[in-house]
């Protein structure tokens, strides 16, 4: 799982963070799914996604370019895109409904808002998954404001120490918050690390 339901943050900050995934199901509709998955990525790009990626093949840093990500999509891939506003989210959902690719689409974000966007796009939620938070020895977790950045890579590939290092660089003025966000995106192989939200969170941290 890309862990997209566990993205931590205030409601205000989560208003700028929407993740859309598309995937086939093994032995049901995976054969010949690659062109449809590619089409999904193109639709997301046309609707101004912030990032896109392929959990199987790796992100654009790993594969060299967005074009390579698109080209190398395989039948069993899970492809992703992030958005920073509801207008684009509704746009992409509408187009996905119209094009009827026949593959599963999953949207993560603030529940009420996703439900509203579904309604506007003429879609109905089929199954819903909630996060019940983090349990166990939670003293081992970093502070919430760092967790808000770290949890944008659900597989924890974006190290907490790397986040601190980047925040420090921004604080010292050696790089911009946007550049820091781009650096932090690189280890997130699925490409679901929302760089737009990350830059905003970093700016808030150094303010």
């Amino acid at each position: 799982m890309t862990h997209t339901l566990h993205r931590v943050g205030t409601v205000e900050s989560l208003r700028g963070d929407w993740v859309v995934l598309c995937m086939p199901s093994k032995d049901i509709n995976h054969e010949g799914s690659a062109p449809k998955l590619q089409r999904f990525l193109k639709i997301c790009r046309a609707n101004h996604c912030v990032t896109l990626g392929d959990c199987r093949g790796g992100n654009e840093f790993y594969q060299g370019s967005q074009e390579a990500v698109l080209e190398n999509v395989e039948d069993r891939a899970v492809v992703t895109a992030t958005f920073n506003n509801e207008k684009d989210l509704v746009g992409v959902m509408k187009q996905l409904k119209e094009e009827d690719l026949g593959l599963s689409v999953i949207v993560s974000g603030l529940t009420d808002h996703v439900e509203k966007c579904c309604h506007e796009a003429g879609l109905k939620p089929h199954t819903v998954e909630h996060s019940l938070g983090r349990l166990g020895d939670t003293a081992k977790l970093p502070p919430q404001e760092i967790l808000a950045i770290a949890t944008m890579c659900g597989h924890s590939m974006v190290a907490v120490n790397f986040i601190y290092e980047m925040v420090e660089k921004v604080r010292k003025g050696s790089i911009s918050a946007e550049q820091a966000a781009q650096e932090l995106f690189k280890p997130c192989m699925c490409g679901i690390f929302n760089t737009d939200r990350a830059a905003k969170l970093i700016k808030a941290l150094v303010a």
Partner: protein
Amino acid sequence: MQINQELCVACGMCISRCPVAAIKKEDTLVHIDLDECVECGVCKRSRVCPKSALEQQELTYPRTIRSLMSDVLTVAVESQISGRGTEEMKTNEVTGRFKDGWVGIAIEMGRPGVATRMYDVEKVAMAVAKENVEFEKQNPVTSMMSNPQTGMFKEELLNERVLSAILEFVIPIEKTDVMLRLIQDVAKEIHTVFSLDICSKVAADGSIPHKKILEKMGIWFSPNTKINVGLGRPLFQGN
């Protein structure tokens, strides 16, 4: 992962990239603590090393499960997908995995970012197994159990450290209350963290069945969710 000491110039550039802080600098030497390293591959993939000194050693069982459970680009044989889980609710409209009257639970051990030893995964698995759950067969974690009925794991895997391991199962909705209390209790006995997920199929009236139970129990749930919007085809025939 290993550092080739012949090549390493101890610049320390790789240290911050490790999600579990397994790369350490002692005096003038930078090395990887192999007991802590979860074989996620992040340090090498970051291409931050100016000397290409980060080298992937050949992994043999049981250490291979570290890479399987920690490196997102390793594809699991059972599920045939990358990532540590399964298709779970993401394809529910075509698989019918979560039906009316049932809820899905996922316990994402080690997440976010803390990692877990398999003995802690076993502790939680054995606690929930008492309620006769059937662990999801396509999840690679289930194949690591010596007895999926009891949640006991293969002895040789217990000390292995992984970035995450997901316990997935489905229960009748009326058991949700008991199961969540049980999970809250076992959470007090482990040395790591887990993220907890609950899902169910939206009812005909548009309500989310598990949400009502959580509200009644007074359990916190996130304002954000993951929603399958029902576009997969062919649709599962049944409830």
